[in-house]
């Protein structure tokens, strides 16, 4: 790497244009929102500059704190379920014969290239009252009823009642797991693929079973990848806007939707700005923890 002083003209030519664009259309807007977050909402919904922490205090009132906690809980649940599904899948791919591995990885990555909105929308058709799940259940219910009727128990099961699967928090969690699962599988796979398998063989040779090897050797060795994937899923779920908007009901508003509401129908920008920054601080805190794991993982590779 060169020192910038040795080639100032090239350095400036490369630095100025992208920096100019990003400062003007990214840093400056963020700074503006940061300033607004200390402002006040005028009587017509306009933003008045001020210096008060009232918006932050309001964000920590019970009604809004509830939404914050719910968002954290939904993000945590999403992360837990993603781990439960993603760990075995990553394990399966990492230990699959080499000729399958590429194909399986492509199958994990492929959904990434599909529009987020469409992937979320696809779940509406699966979960709604006349969706695939309910239709399937109705079919099973009908078959079972017919069978029981044949055995002399007509009306044993009663009328089929479709489950309400859509427009609630469960649907939001399903949607979030669905869109974020690859973000977990890929880093876990990467760390499993790199780890030295002689440790696992040693563990087996020394009499530990597969479970014991998995829990006491494999998971600790792959921990940086697991933690980094899990934290990524967590922050992505926490900051989501689209999934609760499409799949959630009135009880599943998350922070992202609360922010959008303030900048939309509620027209209370200073308050929206304050929540927006709270969400960003939370995101940065998680990213900071994640950076620690990422460094450790890199360290492991060079060792």
């Amino acid at each position, binding site marked *: *790497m*060169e020192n*910038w002083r040795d*080639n100032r003209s090239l*350095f400036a*030519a*490369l*630095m100025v*244009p*992208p920096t100019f*664009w*990003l400062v003007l*259309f*990214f*840093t400056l*807007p*963020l700074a*503006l*929102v940061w300033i607004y977050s200390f402002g006040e909402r005028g009587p017509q919904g306009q*933003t008045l500059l001020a210096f008060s922490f009232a918006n932050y205090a309001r964000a920590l009132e019970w009604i809004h704190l509830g939404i914050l906690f719910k968002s954290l809980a939904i993000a945590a649940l999403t992360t837990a379920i993603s781990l439960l*599904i993603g760990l*075995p899948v990553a394990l*399966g*791919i990492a*230990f699959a*014969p*080499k000729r399958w591995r590429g194909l399986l990885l492509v199958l994990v990555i492929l*959904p990434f*290239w*599909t*529009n*987020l*909105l*469409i*992937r979320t*929308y*696809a*779940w509406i*058709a*699966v979960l*709604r009252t*006349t*969706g695939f799940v309910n*239709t399937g259940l109705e079919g099973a219910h009908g078959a079972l009823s017919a069978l029981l009727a044949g055995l002399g128990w007509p009306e044993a099961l009663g009328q089929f009642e479709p489950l309400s699967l859509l427009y609630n928090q469960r649907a939001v969690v399903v949607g979030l797991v*669905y869109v974020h*699962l690859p973000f977990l599988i890929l880093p876990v796979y990467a760390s499993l693929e790199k780890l030295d398998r002689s440790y696992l063989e040693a563990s*087996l040779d020394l009499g530990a079973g597969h479970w014991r090897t998995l829990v006491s050797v494999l998971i600790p060795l792959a921990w940086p990848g697991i933690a980094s994937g899990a934290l990524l899923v967590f*922050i992505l779920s926490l*900051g*989501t*806007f*689209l999934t609760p908007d499409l799949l959630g009901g009135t009880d599943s508003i998350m922070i992202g939707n609360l*922010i*959008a509401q303030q*900048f939309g129908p509620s027209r209370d920008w200073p308050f929206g*700005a304050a929540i*927006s920054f709270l*969400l*960003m601080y939370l995101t940065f805190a998680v*990213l900071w923890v994640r950076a620690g794991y990422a460094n450790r993982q890199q360290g492991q590779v060079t060792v």
Partner: protein
Amino acid sequence: MSRAGNPFDYARRWWMRAILAASFLFLYFPIVALIAFSFNNSKRNINWRGFTLKYYEKAFANEALHDAFINSMIVASISTLVSTVLGAMLGILLYRFRFPLKGAYEGMVHLPIVIPEVCMGVALLAFFAAIKMPLGLTTITVSHIAFTIPFVAVVIRARMAGFDRSLEEAACDLGAGQWQVMRDITLPYLKPGLIAGAMLAFTLSLDDFVITFFTSGPGSTTFPIKIYSMVRFSVTPEVNAASTLLIVLTLGLTVVAMWVQSRGDGGAGARKEGA
């Protein structure tokens, strides 16, 4: 690792196969069903009533959808052009130079990748309102450029990492000026990275919903925004048809980008494996 009898050959166990099969079913069922039912000859979208292309005809005849598609193409083309150039500059800068506060600078320029999209969306909305810029295709394009620059920069930097600096030195020794070196040595080497970065920027722009949602005005509907408003209205096979078209387009572009990138990396990858 694939020799028979390997104790870690979990993929050969029935339970692992069952887990993998169930997970891939979970990942693919909704999207495959969505695509399949865009060809279903029934408005109700649940029972299979035979193959038809009529919803594609309907989608193609839908003028609003048509306009939204044109808008998306305009936004994606212009933003790709600008963000590829700016992103490439940024990527080369970060690869090549050491400068004071580089860590902080890197954090700042990569921020658009990591902050929640809704935060960036509302920030841009507030900014455009403050400078009294009416929301429309221009504001969408400007915003798309801002959030795709860092992605392009990451791709370019990764490509540069395999670059052999002695080529540049040799060119210098043979009397080339630094701009000539840039034009004749660095840029040709970078070409696959530039194409891959441009494709990434294009698909990111084409697919973006959240940031566009906050930076678009009444007359500047893009394709995903139009699909969103159709979804809010009702779930119809026409939406499925429009969605399928977008999926095919994005997938096609990504495959081309991967192909270009793998062709470009082929030499370097082979060298690494041989070493």
